């Protein structure tokens, strides 16, 4: 690259520096078909076929039945509670997760390594254990005198606990990789620390923050184990969708269970797809 291909020859001779880098595609001959084939097969067996079956089961007694199953008062209450609590939880963790990631990357304090490891605990812990821990800490016999058992606040608390790692763990590596010289360049151009954060750092973190939030949200709407103990499963009050599905199956209403499952599935898909669209729209850069 010795000539500036991007500047038309009609212009006066430009400075050197070469043209834009050609984008090359890396490909292994013959490997593509095999790779795509196994990926699709695996994805079908593990994800697509089971999901299709659920969707199919939900409408095998007609769309009217599907609608009635979803809008029974207890199912509808469980669904709105789940989606509402999940949105709230995702937003709280968006903020708190980003702050925690920031502290873990940019600050130095004793015990940082321990805290860094602890972040993953909600991932590693069986969720029912998390539920038990939360119940003994915030239950009727709370040593803190804070009883959140059988309340919606308890549900939110449980969801916050299990979804904490998502935003932290998606933002942390991006923040680590972030070019510190960008911030220094901004400073030398006159930007205050706050302006540098808002104009330089934040825009570079937003994609990671959004995908962490989407993961936290989708995980929340499906959560069962951690909420089942502390919520007390009071229909119309604290029963979440996953628990409602479980009770439908116990009551031998498989079609109804499948219908609610399908709604959750669609909500999750919509969340993921709109996030993806948002990111594509926001990052036309290569």
């Amino acid at each position, binding site marked *: *690259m*010795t000539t*500036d291909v*991007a*500047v*038309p020859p009609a*212009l006066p001779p*430009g*400075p*050197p*520096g*070469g*043209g*834009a*880098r050609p984008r090359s595609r890396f490909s292994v001959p013959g490997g593509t078909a095999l790779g795509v084939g196994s990926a699709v097969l695996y994805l079908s067996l593990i994800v697509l076929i089971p999901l299709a079956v659920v969707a199919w089961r939900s409408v095998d007694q007609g769309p009217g039945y599907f609608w009635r199953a979803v809008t029974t008062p207890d199912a509808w209450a469980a669904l709105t509670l789940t989606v509402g609590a999940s949105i709230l939880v995702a937003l709280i963790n968006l903020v708190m997760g980003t702050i925690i990631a920031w502290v873990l990357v940019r600050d130095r304090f004793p015990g940082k390594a321990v805290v860094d490891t602890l972040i993953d605990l909600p991932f590693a812990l069986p969720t029912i254990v998390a539920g038990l821990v939360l119940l003994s800490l915030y239950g009727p016999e709370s040593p803190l005198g804070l009883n959140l058992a059988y309340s919606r606040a308890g549900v939110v608390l449980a969801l916050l606990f299990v979804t904490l790692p998502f935003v932290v763990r998606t933002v942390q590596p991006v923040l680590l990789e972030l*070019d510190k*010289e*960008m911030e*220094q*360049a*901004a*400073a*030398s*151009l*006159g*930007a*205050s620390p706050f*302006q540098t954060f808002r*104009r*330089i750092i934040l*825009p*570079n973190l937003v994609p990671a923050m959004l995908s962490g939030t989407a993961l936290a949200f989708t995980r929340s709407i499906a959560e069962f184990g951690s909420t089942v103990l502390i919520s007390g499963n009071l229909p119309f009050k604290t029963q979440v969708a996953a628990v409602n599905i479980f009770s439908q199956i116990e009551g031998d209403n498989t079609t109804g269970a499948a219908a609610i499952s399908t709604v959750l599935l669609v909500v999750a898909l919509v969340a993921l797809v709109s996030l993806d669209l948002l990111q594509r729209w926001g*990052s*036309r*850069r*290569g």
Partner: protein
Amino acid sequence: MAIEVRDVNKSFGTTPVLRDVSIDVESGSLTALLGPSGGGKSTLLRVIAGLEQPDTGTVRISGVDATRLAPQRRNVGFVFQHYAAFKHLTVFRNVAFGLEIRKRPKDEIRKRVMELLELVHLEQMADRYPSQLSGGQRQRMALARALAVEPEVLLLDEPFGALDAQVRKELRTWLRRLHDEVHVTTVFVTHDQEEAIEVADTIVVLADGEVEQVGSPAEVYDNPANPFVMRFLGPVTEIGGSLVRPHDIEISTEPVEGGTAATVSRVVRLGFEVRVELQVEGRDAWVQVTRGFADQLALKSGDVVSVRPTPGARSLVLATV
């Protein structure tokens, strides 16, 4: 003086990086901070920019004590080796950044940015993102971005260090021309003596955190203050206990007055120049001669010759250990 650095000391932990460094940079000049890696030249540049704080000493920019001033308030333009491009902003917005921070009117920003992009020949690239540019283009964008705020001094930290050799050579010629056009006081860091000699008006040689010599390229090349500077600025060889440039040595097949006897160990032809490798008093030395001269002498390995520095050649007597 655009920049006055006085008695600056700086340590990272227990390692001293700058030791009693004092330099003056004249307004409108193009100064190179030259030295080996780890010599403290980048640190000095960052101290001037306010990106590092000196432990002791002062930095004055345009007569104002800037030692404790935040980088935001020094009005310096800084160009980084790895461009430090704002990845999420277009080329236009990158260059406009400093002006947007200063809340200049939109029309004025647009006009100024387009002027600068023209100056660095990137006007066609205004709407691209940095990732769509080559290294050389990114560095030109970074330069335009730094110039946008009309800095009192422009500081460049190994600006061409990440580019390949060809682009580097072309860009440094271009930087010299740009400086002749813009006249902003410029200090750049380099470890490449050829780059410093070709581009700068003044060279500051830094090694081990200390200023070894300050002078014009010709001065530091022809009158090096010490063996280190002489070695760093160009090729040297040792004859008769003195450090001499290999092109400043006469070689003859007959014994000459003041000459030292030497045995030719190898004759290497490198295009227009010929490198004659010698054994002088049991030590290796070499002499650079033209091809015509070498042919005339018909040197071959094993020949005994006489060598001496050309009259008027600069040489440094090495202290005997």
